[in-house]
């Protein structure tokens, strides 16, 4: 079996965001795993994600996880990718400076967004910027 996870992160380092498309049901699993999340098939092919999505909602916690505590406040949201799967990640371009701001910003959602690869404490990850 190929090292799926390492390949994905290596791809991010080269600016490539990939997913796994199921050859049996057509669904995309993102990020990729060993089986199709929809039909459990192992017949998968790597595809390049479009990088387009829709921010569905977001919020921000007063108790961020330890690795990210010094980066707070962090707007964290749900993005439905164009391909179907949802990614939960940082949303750039939204105001999370106060609960009232978060409330106001959520009223403008859903809204289109585009993916970008950022390096957070030495690891490349995918975030989305609200357009």
């Amino acid at each position, binding site marked *: 079996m190929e090292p799926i*996870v390492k390949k994905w992160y290596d791809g991010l380092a080269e600016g490539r965001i990939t997913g796994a498309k199921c050859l049996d049901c057509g669904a995309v699993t993102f*990020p990729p795993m060993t089986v199709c999340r929809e039909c459990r098939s192992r017949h998968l092919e790597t595809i390049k994600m479009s990088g387009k999505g829709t921010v*569905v*909602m*977001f*919020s*921000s*916690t*007063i*108790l*961020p*996880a*330890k690795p*990210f*505590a010094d980066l707070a406040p*962090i707007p*964290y*949201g*749900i993005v*439905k990718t164009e391909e179907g*799967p*949802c*990614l*939960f*990640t*940082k949303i750039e371009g939204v105001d999370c400076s106060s*609960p009232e701001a*978060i*409330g106001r910003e*959520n009223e403008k959602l859903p809204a289109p967004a585009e993916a970008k690869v950022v390096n*957070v404490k030495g*690891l490349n*990850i*995918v*975030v989305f910027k609200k357009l």
Partner: protein
Amino acid sequence: MNNRASIIGVGSTKFGSVLETPELKDRTFQELAAEAAFEAMDDAGVEPDKIDAFIVGNMLTHTSQIYSHSTVLSDWLGMRLKGGFHFDTACSTTNTGLGIAWEMIMSGKCKNVLLVAGEILSSAPKNVFPLDRKAVDAQTLWEWTDYGVDHVYAYHHFYDVASAYGAFPTIGYMRKNKLTFEEMDKAMMEVNRTVRKHSSLNPKALLYSKGTLEEEAKREGFASVDEYWKSAKNPFFAWPTRLFSALNTADGFTASVISAEPEKYANKLPVDIAGFHWTTSNFPWYGEDPTDFPQDKLAFGEAYKMANIKPEEIDYLYVHDCLQIYQLILSEVAGYVPKGQAWKYAVDGKFGFDGEKPLNVSGGRHGGGHAFEASAGFETYEIVKQMRGEAGGRQIKSKLEVVVQHNHGYGMHTAVTVLKKGK
């Protein structure tokens, strides 16, 4: 083969802190597990030598310093040379354990099974001696707890449990039911008011001595619950979810004895395990609609099918309320209240033990406290006491023939068990 598996005894320690609570202080994990187990065995009228096997739940080995739970606990529980194993579905463990015990009994291998679990979340050993402990801060506790969530991808993408498990389902519920923030906030306040009413009546609950929300608001110097709810004492954990809508961690231990032959032991009402189902999902647990966890719908449906019940037959429901929004979401998914109506039931106080649709009457994970793998056992304890008429000041007076217990296990397992009044 046996033809029934019934809960005949339950036990629970006080939920509190091993650093401070008199009932828990200066006691080891082993002693507290024994306390819960002995209460359950005494309640059942079953001597240890009559137990055929025991199963043990415990999630945070950082704080218990135990890996081989069944062997380490065997002597302390009176289970030496009995069959046993550690099992884990995180916070749904002692609910899942009811189904495992059913399987062990219905296979014919066991007549009596002891299910026990414990969790210490307040503190960890400073070094290797369990009684020499230091407090654990919230961020460290969550760092360990979040091992229950995907660390291959999700965690590194700024994983935020308050948002993922609290704020998003709340925003989803608001949008689905076209509620303003003010309406949603009021509904959550009323949910918490009922939670605190229940815990103020449960001596084993974490917040028992803190009283009701009304009493606390007055003590804190606020003219009303509404003022207190909206104050700096109750900040937004992650908008729109406020802190009081979230769990309070606790140290606690619970146990149940499940038997194929209730008529042989204590002369108390047995509670039959009539049906159950478990489901699992890696993160994310939902898609665009955070009120729709596919695993919950499936678990309720299959458990009801096994027990041959319809939702309208449920007399009492417990749903996992680490975040109290799930009282609204899951009471609707369970079919206990009509879709889109749970928030109104909460506002009208109908979820009280004395209300039309009693829900989470132990005080749940905020008022009762959350001791991870022991918590579902706290609810089983409550259900059995309620069905026997032993729940004191919070006794549900309406009929209790069919009860459903739902638990989530982080992140995310679902266990649903249907319990019926036995004979």
